[in-house]
């Protein structure tokens, strides 16, 4: 199982913004935790979403040791206006540029980045994503939408913030 999944888990951690050192720390914590909790894994399901959830939690624990969680929220209308709602389209090319989007992803608040990476980049199903992140399906969808809007704002040259 380790050899089959460690690369994907490491890739997820790097995509969630972990540097090499944090990604390796979280990777080790993930598989140690998986090893210890193997009896709780329901056989017959894919191990990958289960490992993704453990890895994501390990990375969050690492980050929480260093900084508090962002608490500020912004109205959807305000976020959408910043993303270009009701304004002339002017960033279309940037919306198709992989490097620009990877840069913007790196500047999303952690909670939004997790959802966007799992749903849009990795193609994890909505219910599995919600389960892995400990969110209701509705909350996961809302966070995904906000994350995409914030990406649009960043790609239009908007401010980098912590959500």
């Amino acid at each position, binding site marked *: 199982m380790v050899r089959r999944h460690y690369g994907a888990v490491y890739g997820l951690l*790097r995509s969630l913004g972990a540097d090499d050192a944090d990604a390796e720390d979280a*990777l080790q914590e993930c*598989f140690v935790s998986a*090893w210890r909790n193997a009896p709780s894994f329901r056989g017959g399901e894919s191990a990958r979403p289960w490992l993704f959830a453990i890895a994501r939690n390990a990375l969050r624990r690492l980050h929480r040791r260093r900084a508090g969680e962002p608490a500020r929220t912004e109205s959807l209308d305000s976020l*959408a206006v910043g993303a270009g709602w009701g304004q002339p389209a002017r960033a279309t090319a940037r919306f198709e540029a992989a490097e620009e989007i990877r840069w913007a992803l790196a500047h999303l608040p952690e909670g939004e980045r997790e959802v966007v990476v799992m749903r849009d980049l990795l193609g994890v199903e909505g219910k599995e994503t919600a389960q892995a992140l400990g969110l209701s399906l509705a909350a996961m*969808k809302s966070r995904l*939408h906000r994350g*995409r*809007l914030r990406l649009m704002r960043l790609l239009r040259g908007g401010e980098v913030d912590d959500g």
Partner: protein
Amino acid sequence: MADPNRRIGTLRCRDLMPHLGGYVDHEISAELREAIDAHLEGCPECADFGSEYARLVDTLRSLSIPEDGDDSVEARLLGRLGRLWSASDRPPGDDSTGA
């Protein structure tokens, strides 16, 4: 921008925004989709914004995440799991870790 309270069909511009993600992801009811389609037909600003949103989602879905981690990362991981394995009589689960 245009008035977010402008109503076209049964929806105001503002009403559309919370459902745009579900619309692009095909996760809304047929009735709501029909209402959004009607709004977009009469509201070029929301239609343009919806197109940009959909374009971004398409690009996100096309981005690959390479399976990462080199041999040394794997070796250190397997080494740590191996030490854990050696330190206990049996692993808590079966032997499927491959470590």
